[in-house]
């Protein structure tokens, strides 16, 4: 139990550390000094899922981006483990596309380094617009009160819309804390040895379901639970294996 609490405390990996799922994936592959291939992708799948499980707080928009990549990785890995598994042509193309995008992304990481190295190394300085000119009153022709109000209305409306969206995202991202979810599932498991994923996520929002799924992946990885699913789309059963 203490171990679990400690683990939650120790979740230090912030989503800011990586700019997105491709960044994370390329970092994982490069850290193993491998090229981008299906094999290397399969090899880093566990690490990728571990990272997702360890995320303390995720921006909901970004979470979805991470999950899309996660699902592709799981597909690649399952094919490695079970060569007999049949995948559709569409899935095949999906895998190809992921490798392609990763290669492009990897190239841009060199560009990042170039920009980082140059940034403020030898900055150039300009002069302020009309430096030294003192101000004289030169009004524009034909600006009416109405023009001013119209222009303000427009910019204020756009700004208000953006603020509302930002607030919404802020609120949502506050709600979605994987560590809280892990704690909740963990407490649930203490009371009941076994329960299903649908029980866990009953009447929950889509985002909460996603987070719950990440949380059980995490608990599974750390061997706190066993997961069982007899067929695709069947009920996922969770069983506590904490001694």
């Amino acid at each position, binding site marked *: 139990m203490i171990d679990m609490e400690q683990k939650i405390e120790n979740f230090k990996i912030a989503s800011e550390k990586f700019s997105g799922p491709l960044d994370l994936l390329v970092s994982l592959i490069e850290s193993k000094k491998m090229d981008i291939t299906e094999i290397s992708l399969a090899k880093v799948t566990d690490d990728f899922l571990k990272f997702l499980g360890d995320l303390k707080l995720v921006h909901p928009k970004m979470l979805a981006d991470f999950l899309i990549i996660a699902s592709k990785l799981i597909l690649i890995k399952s094919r490695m483990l079970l060569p007999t598994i049949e995948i559709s042509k569409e899935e095949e193309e999906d895998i190809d596309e992921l490798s392609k995008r990763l290669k492009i992304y990897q190239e841009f990481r060199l560009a990042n380094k170039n920009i980082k190295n140059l940034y403020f190394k030898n900055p150039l300085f300009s002069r302020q617009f009309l430096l030294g000119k003192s101000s004289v009153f030169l009004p*524009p022709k034909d600006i009416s009160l109405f023009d*001013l109000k119209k222009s303000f209305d427009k910019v204020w409306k756009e700004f208000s819309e953006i603020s509302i969206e930002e607030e919404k995202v802020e609120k949502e991202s506050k709600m979605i804390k994987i560590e809280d979810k892990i704690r909740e599932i963990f407490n649930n498991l203490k009371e009941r040895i076994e329960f299903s994923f649908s029980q866990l996520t009953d009447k929950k929002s889509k985002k909460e379901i996603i987070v719950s799924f990440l949380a059980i992946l995490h608990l599974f990885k750390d061997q706190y639970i066993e997961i069982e699913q007899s067929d695709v789309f069947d009920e996922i059963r969770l069983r506590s294996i904490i001694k």
Partner: protein
Amino acid sequence: MSIEEKNNLKRAIEGILFVSGEPVGLKKLSKLLEQKEDDIREMILEMREEFNDRGLIIISDDEKYQLTTSPNISNIITEFLKTELKDDLSPASLETLAIIAYKGPISRIEIDNIRGVNSSFILRSLLVRGLITKEKSPNSKLINVYRISFDMIRNLGIENIHQLPDFDKYQ
């Protein structure tokens, strides 16, 4: 000094005078560049000769130096200033002016945030045209706040900012 050292020194002097809007004193140059005042003076003499064909000249007064445009291009500079200052306001400038009118006194950071783009250049040009004024924020001496100028308020045909349409609604 070697020619290369001399050139480096001249480059530095030119750069400093370029970014400074005000005359720079010999003492200050000497201290900053860690060179004797006589050497700086000599460099500036040489630079003046070399600048012969250039659009800029170094003027001096009381051991202070300033970089400015050469008198033989004053006509074209006057023309340029006219076009810069008398043009109609761009939509971006009008928008910035409107934000300052309704929300002033307001800081640059707040304006940038409302507009979603950096407004430094527009603010500077509105200031030079006398449409807005700048003052230290009452809350922090490090922050400047902008408000619409009195001249501009009168130009709009009102006596004070509260007479803007829907002014109270936006406060």
